[in-house]
Structure formats: C-alpha cells, structure tokens
C-alpha cells in the first residue's frame, strides 16, 4: 500500500466543522442522525382514539388474523344453510387459491402472465383424465393431486422458458399465445393422432368425486344439496397454501423474487440468479393453479374447454389488483369481494343497489360535497319527475312497464324513470348510443356546461340501466364490476390493503 496516510482521513473538510458549529449546540453532531433522535416525537404526533386503534391493530400478528379468518369462514355454514351460498363459498376459496398463486407470479415476481388460466385447466384435465370412466383410470385422489401439482410446475417451467429472455409486454403476449395453443389442444384433443384424450368440445363427463383412502366424498347430499365437506377440504388446502406462501415470502427466495420485481438488473448484480428465479416464480404459480383445478373438477364432475375462458383470467387479475398487488391478504380479500359481488349481481334487485351506489359515489368523488353536487342531484331528480309526467300524458303505454326485481329502491325508481311496457330494439339502440355519446361529450366540457349536460346524462344512464342492462345480468355484472373497480382504484390506488408503492423518485 502506497501513499496512504490514515491520519489525514480523520480531518474533516475545510469548513465542515465550522458549518456544524454554526448550527448551534442543540443540533445533532456530525454522524448523528436527527431523524432517528427525534423519531419518538414524530410518532407521538399520531395520537387520538383512531391512533390507538391503529397502533393496537398493527400489533396483532398475522397468524392471529389468519386463525380468525379461517374460524369465521369455517363457521359460516352454521349460519348459512342455503346450499347455493355454501357452494359460492367453495368457489370463493378456489378463487382465493388462484389469486394467491397469481400473486406469486405477478405480485412478487413482477412477471405479466396472461396464460395463467392454462395451468388451472391443466390441473382440471389431469384430474378428469386420471379419475373418470372416460379412460377407465380411477387413480387415488392424492396421487392425482400430486401429479397435477408436479405436472403444473413442469408445464410452468416450459411456458416460463421464454421469460428468461422476455419481460413486460413481450412476455404477456407469449404467455397469451401459449394459452391459446392450450385451448386449441383441448378443443382438438378428441382426435390426437386418432385417439381421444380430452373429449374435445364435449369435454370429460362423470368425473369421480374426491376420495381419500377409500372414503368417497359425495358431491351432493340428498336432494342434490352441495356437500359442505368440499368447502372444508378446500379451506384446509387454502390455509396450508397461505401459510406456505407466507413462509416463502419471508425467506431468501421471497426476498429475491421481490428484489427482481423492483429492479431485475440490480437484483442480478447483487448475486441473485434472475433467470432461474423467474422460472421458479412461473412454476410456483402454475403448480398452485393446477392444484386448484383438481378441486374444481372434483366438485363439478365435468370439464369443458369453455371453463377456462379469458373472462376468468381477467376476474382473477381483478381480484388480485383490487386487494392489493403483492399482498397475500389482499388476494384473499379481493377474491371474496369480487366472487360474492358477481353472485349478488346475478339478481337485478341486488345489482340495482350497487349500480346507484356506484353512481352516487362516482358523483361524490368527482364533484366533492359541494353546491354543484346538490345542483346536479336536485336537477336529476326534478328532471326525472317532469319527464315521467310529460311522457305519461303523451302516451300511457310508455310508462306502463315495471322495474325488474323488488326492493324499496325499485319502488322508488318506478315513480321516477320512464319504463315503457315494451322496449323495442330501436329504442334500445338509440338510448344506449346517445348515452355513450353524452358521456364522451362530458369529457370535453368544463364548468357549468358540464354540469348542465351531466343532468340528462345521469337520467339517461338510469333509463338505460333499468330498461336494458338490468334485464341482462350476465353481461351487466361485468360492466358494473368494471365501474366499481374504477371507483375503488380512484379512492385506493394501491388496492384495499396494498401498501403505497413508489416507482421512481
């Protein structure tokens, strides 16, 4: 070592000492950290009842929340004896597992995987092929589940191979292609070199229910009611999955995944094998989806290519994003909210509440609680009453219809919205297109003209909803869900439990 004199280093720069001294004796010394020293003062600022509640809640460990959640979920069938809603709970648990698996790939790994549903389908078909009279195999359930798990993981590695080189948009397109190929194989699978493998569009029927060590778990009880045992089995598996994922998140691998999501180059330069980590994340998500697929088909007893459409993929993405990307609790909460909401929206009397609530919330978010909000609300109500009176005088058949469903809101709406006894296709098209035109016009307007146009737009929206959309819940529920997602994203941009995320400063 040459030219190195350690003593010189202890001398501060010219002026540094003076600058420090000038700040006075109360300021921290060089090397001391002001923020750390005063940290308790800053914390004390968050007082009050809400502060105490927040403080207490944050001290509850994660496993206590999990226990509470599982207990509430497990006790649900005591209060809910309706087989239909018990079945919804089972589907919700499957959604939870799918969202948790997708969270590994997208939330932690940061890999945009649009082929995720393919692995779900792979697991379902694996179970259906190995446990149905179609081919005469009736292998043990646990063995088939293990095969689906491992097979899904391997398929995940295969599909993930391009991710070694690709990222972002490119990866999304490649995985979407892989998914399309998978669906084509399922549809054309009744004639692969002359032999039937997947049953083609007719799918595979009469799939065996779950059976453990010789004990068959029947799908339904007397009268075709959903067997609640399936709910408990799914809940048990999902709890194990949640804990396993929680453990892996707080491990070397979980940290490496999240590092890769934050900055893959920096992660690699800090010694993490990014290509391998990407494959591993893909494989994990795939294995979880494949495993969930076996539960799905065991209860349904049949499987078709149509079970794995893109709507399902988008729904699972929506669950994960709504709850908060990268958060396990978020995936669970998002799955419950969207799954239950989609069921509620099947019934017009329920979806009406959600539609008008979203409308009011949207107005409050845009206009705030102001005079303008009062003007618009008053204007819309007055306009409705006047229009209905006038239309009634001109032709009574134009107000002879009744709203679908029941409820106090429905009764109230019936006195306000024009409900023709027969809605012609012509009327449908004109009102729907003018609603879209008005909405587009709104985006270009500012100030009072916007408020004036807003009034008829809202009334027209109510008209279109009552006469066209509410009649077709199968389509409408996704439109409504989309609207609700937009509202939630404005209020909480990082999802319901998602933490604030920062990309660049």
């Amino acid at each position, binding site marked *: 070592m*040459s030219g190195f004199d350690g003593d010189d280093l202890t001398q501060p720069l010219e002026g540094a000492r003076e600058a420090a001294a000038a700040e006075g004796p109360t300021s921290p010394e060089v090397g001391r*950290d002001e923020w750390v020293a005063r940290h308790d003062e800053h914390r004390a600022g968050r007082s009050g009842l809400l502060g105490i509640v927040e403080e207490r809640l944050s001290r509850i460990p994660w496993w206590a929340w999990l226990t509470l959640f599982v207990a509430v979920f497990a006790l649900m069938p005591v209060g809910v004896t309706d087989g239909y809603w018990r079945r919804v709970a089972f589907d919700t648990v499957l959604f939870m597992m799918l969202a948790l698996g997708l969270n590994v790939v997208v939330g932690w790994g940061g890999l945009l995987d649009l082929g995720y549903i393919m692995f779900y389908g792979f697991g379902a078909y694996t179970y259906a092929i190995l446990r149905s009279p179609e081919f005469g195999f009736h292998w043990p359930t646990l063995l088939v589940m293990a095969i689906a798990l491992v097979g899904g993981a391997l398929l995940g590695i295969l599909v993930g191979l391009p991710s070694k080189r690709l990222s972002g948009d490119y990866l999304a397109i490649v995985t979407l292609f892989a998914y399309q190929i998978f669906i084509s194989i399922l549809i054309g699978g009744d004639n692969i070199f002359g032999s039937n493998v997947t049953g083609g569009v007719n799918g595979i029927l009469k799939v065996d229910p779950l059976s453990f060590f010789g004990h068959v778990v029947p799908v339904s009880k007397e009268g075709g009611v959903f067997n609640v045992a399936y709910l408990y089995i799914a809940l048990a598996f999902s709890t194990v999955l949640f804990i396993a994922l929680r453990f892996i998140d707080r491990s070397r691998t979980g940290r490496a995944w999240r590092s890769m999501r934050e900055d893959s180059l920096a992660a*690699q330069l800090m010694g993490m094998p990014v290509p391998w980590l990407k494959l591993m994340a893909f494989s994990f998500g795939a294995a979880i989806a494949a495993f969930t697929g076996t539960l799905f088909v065991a209860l349904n007893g049949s499987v078709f290519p149509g079970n794995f459409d893109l709507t399902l993929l988008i729904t699972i993405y929506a669950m994960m994003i709504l709850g908060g990307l990268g958060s396990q609790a978020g995936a669970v909460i998002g799955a419950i909210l969207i799954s239950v909401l989609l069921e509620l929206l099947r019934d017009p009397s329920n979806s009406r509440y959600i539609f008008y609530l979203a409308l009011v919330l949207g107005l409050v978010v845009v206009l705030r609680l102001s005079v303008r909000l009062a003007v618009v609300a008053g204007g819309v109500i007055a306009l409705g009453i006047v229009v209905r009176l006038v239309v009634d005088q001109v032709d009574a058949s134009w107000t002879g219809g009744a709203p679908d469903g029941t409820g106090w809101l429905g009764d109230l709406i019936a006195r306000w919205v024009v409900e023709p006894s027969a809605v012609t296709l012509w009327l449908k098209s004109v009102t729907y297109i003018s609603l879209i035109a008005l909405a587009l016009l709104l985006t270009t307007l500012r100030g009072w003209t916007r408020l004036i146009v807003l009034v008829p737009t809202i009334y027209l929206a109510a008209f279109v909803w009552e006469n066209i959309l509410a009649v077709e819940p199968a389509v409408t529920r996704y439109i409504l869900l989309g609207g609700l997602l937009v509202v939630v994203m404005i209020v909480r941009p990082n999802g319901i439990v998602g933490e604030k995320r920062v990309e660049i400063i």
Partner: protein
Amino acid sequence: MAEKLLELRGVSMAFGGLQCIDGLDLHVDEGEIVSAIGPNGAGKTTLFNLITGVYEPTAGDIVFAGSSIKGLAPHKITQRGIARTFQTLRLFLNMSVRENVMSAAYSHTKSGPLRSMLRTPGMRREEQEIRELAEKRLAFFGERLMGYRWDQPAYSLSYANRRRLEIARATATNPRLLLLDEPAAGMNPKETQEITDLIAKLRTDAGYTILVIEHDMHVVEGISDRVIALDHGLKIAEGSFEEVATSPQVIEAYLGTGGMARK
C-alpha cells in the same frame, strides 16, 4: 508489490460504431483503494458495467483473483466476490431497509423454497444469520440506518441514506472487491466528509479492496492510493493524486486546450 486482485487486459467496448472503452489496461491490487476519474462520458460507468458483467467486452480479457470472468453472467461474477453500487441509485424501493440488505445475501446462502415453506431448523438458523449479517452491515453506518429505519421502506430514505444503503447492500454479498460509483454524489460537505472517512474504514475495518468512481476531488484526494484518469475510453494518466492532478492531459481533458490558451 501486493497481488493483483483485478486485472483488465486490453479491454475494448464498442456500441455500434461508438468506441466507449479502447484497449484499456488496468489493475487493482489486493487491499488497494483506486479512484477512476474523468469528465462525463469518459467511460467510467461503462468500465464498471464491463467488470460486473452487464456488458461483455468486444475485445480483451478481465481477470479476477486469477481466473477470467469475461462472459460470465452478472450474478456469477458477484458470487466470485465483486459487488457494486450504482451512480443512479437502484435500490429495491418498496422493500424494507433491512430486506434490501438481506436480499443481497442470496448468493452465499442455501435454503431453497421447499425448506423455506417447511421452515426447517436449518433454514431458520440461516435466516437468523442473514438477519444478523444485515444488521451488522447496516450498523457500519452508525446511527444513520439503525433502529426503526430497519423496517421502513427504502423509498422513505433521504438521498444520502440511500447511497449508504446501497453500500450496505453491496457489502452483504461478502465481496472482496467493492466498486463504488460516485458514492458522494448529491451529498453536502458534512456528508461528503463522512463518506470519505467511511470508504477508508471499509478497507481498514472490513478489508475490502475498493475501486471508486468519484467527481469530488476532496474525496479522491482523501482516499486514493492510486488514481486513474480516463477520457474517451482511454487511460490518460495514472499515479498518485498529485501526479494525476498535475498531468497536462488531465487538465486538458477537464478544461480543454482552448480554455488554457485563452488564459
């Protein structure tokens, strides 16, 4: 003369037609602190990217601890014992301060996902070791990155603390050679003095060999055993700080010939 830890032999790097590094010979001895200086665009950061495997040199060879590391993947090079910081900070912003440092222990730890899910005793022991390592690395910076800051997200840190955290993260890979890319950029005089002391301490206390890119000549003067000046991808001067600072080529590179003539 100490043993050569890192040696670049005739390394060249061209992007298309642009020759960024041209036949560069450079070596860093075990236990040495070497500074690379030069005007913006001289190829200093490219030099770091070549050493750490972000780019593969178009010609020449890079030898680290006796074996060639040319063409190895970046994470393999880090495993061999080279760690770096970034001029444009590249922290894992949405992870906690402690996790940032813990994540860098990946290459010298073993627990796979299966053992993590089962939380085997071995995995828990290793996790505890990683945690202690991270806390030790953070403690190196005194109170700056201590206490409640451990659990705060990295984005909540000030600029200077982010630079410190980057150094802590790099040291958690257990390197032999530490590459610091402008460690004092954006720091006030007080903090600059602190970082100067710290770089010296990194060598004396932790035993790292250090190659540093720095624009602040106070820092360069304070720490360097040897200074290398680059311009347009060529080495224009090498030697002690005084030798390099008074070299006509270096003055020309920084101020230009015209600037001298007009005076």
